[in-house]
């Protein structure tokens, strides 16, 4: 999810498909009004137009059970770590 509008979100998905040569099997969401970003306290403190990269795991009851804050630009948590956390919950 990002603050991209629909068109930019579609382009980002197409770009990813070309890059990885495969379909993306999860929804990439557009929050152009940044209401959900704000609700999750994920607004970038230095640029209110953007979301700060944060990863959450939400359980079946709708409760946040784990989160990861990216500290530096481009520093993303590896998928394997997320899967590991999922398995521990």
């Amino acid at each position, binding site marked *: 999810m*990002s*603050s991209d509008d629909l068109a930019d979100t579609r382009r*980002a998905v197409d770009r990813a498909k070309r890059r990885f040569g495969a379909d993306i099997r999860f929804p990439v*969401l*557009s929050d152009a009004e940044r209401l959900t970003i704000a609700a999750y*306290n994920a607004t970038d403190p230095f640029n209110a137009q953007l979301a700060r990269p944060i990863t959450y*795991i*939400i359980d079946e009851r*709708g409760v946040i059970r784990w989160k990861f804050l990216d500290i530096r630009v481009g520093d993303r948590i590896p998928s394997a770590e997320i899967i590991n956390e999922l398995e521990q919950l």
Partner: protein
Amino acid sequence: MRNEPIGKVFALMLLGVMLIVWSGCGDSDEPLVKAETPSEPEELTSDTPIPVTLTGSLKGEVEKIVGVQFNIRLLQDGTVVSSVEADADGNYRIDNIAPGVYTVQMTARGYEAVEQTVQIHADDVALLDRVALKALEIPVPHIQGRLLNQATKQPLDRARLQLLDETGNVREVLTNETGAFEFENVPAEQQLTLIIDTDGFERQELPIPPIPAGEIATVDVELVRLPRFRGLLSDHITKQPLAGFLLQLIDEAGNVHEATTRGTGLFAFEGLPAGQRFTLLINHEKYEKQELLIDPIPAGEVAITEVELVPLDRDQLPVGEGLEVGTKAPDFRLPDGDGKIHALADYAGQNKVVLVFDRGNW
């Protein structure tokens, strides 16, 4: 001395209800229903502190008659509050009596009952005059029996039984620690009704056929325990037990049964109506309101469940640092690049969700 008549013994046995057991399922919110086992404690458990009150005692003596057992009953406003048997010398004592005015009834099979009024004072022992019981001139029948828990076969102590005769007279006795009870000197050749209405068990009304004079009817009864619902309440995030939480169980008639969790987070509802669906309601200011549907619990069985409450408010973090773990995730409805709407609620109760916020095309 008056010998006990040896007559035909009438025996009635209330047949137990067949237990139906169904096993639980994977979801921890779903109750597991199980049959009562003999290992379960007979007494109800509660966190309610027993109030400390000052009590008194009484003691007295019935003139000894070899081979005769005297029953001593303490009544208040016509209700039996305690009963004991006199010892072999005819002495008796009753302790832990709340201060007040009582009637002491002394009776034995084949003997006229004698009643005395007594005032009980706190921290005092009331002494009653020695009495002699007079033998009845004509033989009369008696009823004796035992009261057991149908599932565990454990005796039911201090259960109240009433005997109704054709003229509308009601006699009342309590069971002793072995579940035994006795109605001495009941009317002969009358249709009688034994009424057993004790907390946590199904009420029974048993017709007792007319008993010939001088004979003893033995009525052993097994009572089916009313459904019970027990469980553990804990915090969904910390998994810590939640103590002192009020739980309400609403039956189909709208009756509200209440229980409070103990320090261990355990709760227990006893004596519930059988064959009814319930709604379990937990409403606490610091947790998300919980409402669960509970399937009917058969008589004699106990449903067990675990309930986790989701905490509501967590500490607010600085801007951009996300929400605290343990926070309820805000719901959203957002489009993907093709305009298809996705909502967090679509995944509720089914799957975990990995939600990634990113900078996007900046």
